[in-house]
């Protein structure tokens, strides 16, 4: 099936406790490009390789966490169609006007059963990636910071991940790629969903509180780049949670670390391609440690407890 509905994660708005410190971190350490500031004080970033105007939006607040994550859809007709399907499914949707987020068209906003705010949008200005569409050069990783390829996915924590999965699968066309079962062998502790051929565009873990963020991930090109990111983190005294290591689930290589407000981020490389005819992979409770952290082969306390 060609990717024609929901394409990919397009933007995530994070709450930060100190904007100046955060801008410095996302610019100098993450190596993102600041692309704008709006009247309400939000600061917009993209990776150098991303073409759309923004993928990370920071908002100063008195608590850390995720305001919302937005998925880009193919075009305006798709947006209208998915809005109708959401409403028919019983989801209350809200239209955020074009321009409310800089260089971004109208957004369809709704809450999923885990309490998170999700958006769909079709338009975001293509400001380019520094290369031309005609006869481009290769973009060499140079200059300061980690310089990821793209904002890649998020892992969200909340109660009703079954309801959220049903909505993503039945209305938005996502597929289940992997899952971890609880001790009872029946209930999902965690699920990995894709709207593309990536191993995940969204992951969810069952949790006692709704609306929590575990991490927002950025894609890197190689394991070598993951190690380079770790060096940059140490040079800048970044708070590292775990890694560099590998996930059994998705098979990606990884570092979990925290932004200056305690929002967990991930620099991630690899993962396999998923096609809609692939069967989901199931992990049993006994092997969850290896599934999450393939080398340590155990869950750490922070994975289940440290959230914003």
């Amino acid at each position, binding site marked *: 099936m060609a990717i024609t509905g929901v394409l990919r994660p397009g933007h995530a708005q994070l709450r930060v*406790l100190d904007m100046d410190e955060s801008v410095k971190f996302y610019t100098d350490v993450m190596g993102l490009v600041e692309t704008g500031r709006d009247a309400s004080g939000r600061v917009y970033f993209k990776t150098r390789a991303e073409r759309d105007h923004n993928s990370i939006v920071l908002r100063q607040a*008195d*608590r*850390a966490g995720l305001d919302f994550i937005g998925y880009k859809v193919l075009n305006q007709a798709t947006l209208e169609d998915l809005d109708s399907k959401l409403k028919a499914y019983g989801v209350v949707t809200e239209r955020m006007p074009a321009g409310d987020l800089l260089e971004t068209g109208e957004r369809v906003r709704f809450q999923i059963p885990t309490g998170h705010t999700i958006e769909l949008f079709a338009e975001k200005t293509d400001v380019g990636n520094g290369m031309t569409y005609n006869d481009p050069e290769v973009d060499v990783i140079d200059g300061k910071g980690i310089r990821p390829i793209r904002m890649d996915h998020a892992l969200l924590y909340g109660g009703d991940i079954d309801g959220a999965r049903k909505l993503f699968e039945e209305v938005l066309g996502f597929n289940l790629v992997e899952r971890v079962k609880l001790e009872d062998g029946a209930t999902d502790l965690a699920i990995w969903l894709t709207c593309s051929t990536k191993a995940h565009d969204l992951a969810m873990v069952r949790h006692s509180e709704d609306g929590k963020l575990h991490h927002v991930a950025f894609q890197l090109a190689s394991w070598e780049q993951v190690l380079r990111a770790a060096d940059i983190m140490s040079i800048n005294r970044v708070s590292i*949670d775990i890694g560099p290591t590998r996930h059994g689930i998705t098979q990606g290589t990884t570092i979990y670390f*925290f932004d200056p*407000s305690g929002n967990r981020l991930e620099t991630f490389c690899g993962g396999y391609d998923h096609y809609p005819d692939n069967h989901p992979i199931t992990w049993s409770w006994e092997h969850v440690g290896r599934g999450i952290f393939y080398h340590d082969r155990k869950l750490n306390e922070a994975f289940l407890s*440290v959230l914003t």
Partner: protein
Amino acid sequence: MPSHTITLSDGQSYRCPDSESLLRGMETLGKKGIPVGCRNGGCGVCMVHVLEGTYVARAMSREHVSEQDEAAGRVLACRVRPGSDMQLCVIGKMKKSVCRAVEPSDVPPHST
């Protein structure tokens, strides 16, 4: 660089320079006692009650530290640098039971 003696309610102590947070100071020396989370004021797991001592605190997520908490010395160890020797009671969630007996009864439930 001045450093101070930080004593936890279980009797453990360590020296923490005034340039480091109480949490980093503990971790750097390989000590344990305060739960380690994001280290940046967002997740709330390293909450301590300052029983004695002076300190400087940075912004902490209001999700976990209310104004009343802050005024009463219930703060996140990752956002606090010592200004003197300090005595702490650990009340963070991952180690909630460490000193429940002396936990103030008006502590609101903290979420992570």
